[in-house]
């Protein structure tokens, strides 16, 4: 396997859905190629950092307006039926 093929298979490799023979080939290449190893490692860390970052909170006023609008919609539907 060469560096270009690593890029092609990168997403499947990171998602753990690569077939075993291709994965073995890819990992053999990684053991010999520092650049590809660093790209795989930093890509994996990129996903991990976004996954673990602080959540966006749902502000109470935003939630309250949503539920008020919903209740109004429920009432209108109830009146019309």
């Amino acid at each position, binding site marked *: 396997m060469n*560096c270009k093929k690593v*890029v092609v298979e*990168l*997403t*499947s490799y*990171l*998602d*753990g859905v690569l077939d075993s023979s291709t994965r073995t080939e890819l990992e053999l290449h990684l053991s010999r190629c520092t*650049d590809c190893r*660093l*790209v795989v*490692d*930093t*890509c*994996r*860390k*990129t*996903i*991990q*950092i*976004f*996954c*673990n*970052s*602080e*959540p*966006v*909170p*749902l*502000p*109470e006023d*935003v*939630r309250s*307006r*949503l*539920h008020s*609008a*919903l209740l109004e*919609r*429920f009432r209108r539907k109830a009146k019309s039926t």
Partner: protein
Amino acid sequence: MVLCQMCAASLFAPPGARWFVSATDPKPLASTIVRDDEAALVSAAKGGDTSAFEELVNRYERKIFRLGMNITQNREDAEDVMQDAFMKSYQNLDRFQGDSRFYTWLVRIAVNEALMKLRKRRPNQVSLDEPITDSDGEDSLFREIEDWGPSPEKKFAQTELNEILNSVISELDPIFRVAFLLRDVEGLSTEETAHILGISVAAVKSRLLRARLKLRQKLNKYFRRSEAQ
């Protein structure tokens, strides 16, 4: 900024990770529907049980708001996206056939609403139909190959890290940003992401690859080991 519900692979899940958003817990509802059974909730809501629909809202409101924020990068737009998504899903509930999860259907509505917001803001720049190529070319994605060390994010305070992540993801083209958010942040499968975006699985993989490589490249200047703090 963002929080993963179901990371793509177990190797991405560190011990002690926070998996739930920090908004106020939803008030308990009087619905008699079993909480874990989404299909039953949808069925009851179709039959006129408004508390069942409200339970679905309680279950997904944080996720939809977060998705709206991450796509539009704007709080008012995110609120509109969330309201419109729930209102439209309620209005069209009878048309929901149940051939996908209700959540997936809801996300599809929310993504369309969010992209419409972006198109209104930047009518000439936002399209889901544009080709999956850009002026950078493939080669540029393989520049700046440097070691980040074991926990590069720890070099920054939480607020600063959030600003960095917000900044780099907002620079990403919306078609790549949405693929990354749905697959890697919201934890949807590649197939679900393809269904939501109305594109092939191969196209999702292609967009995801480019999004991951671009984000990696953009984060490199902050996280490389050689970067002095």
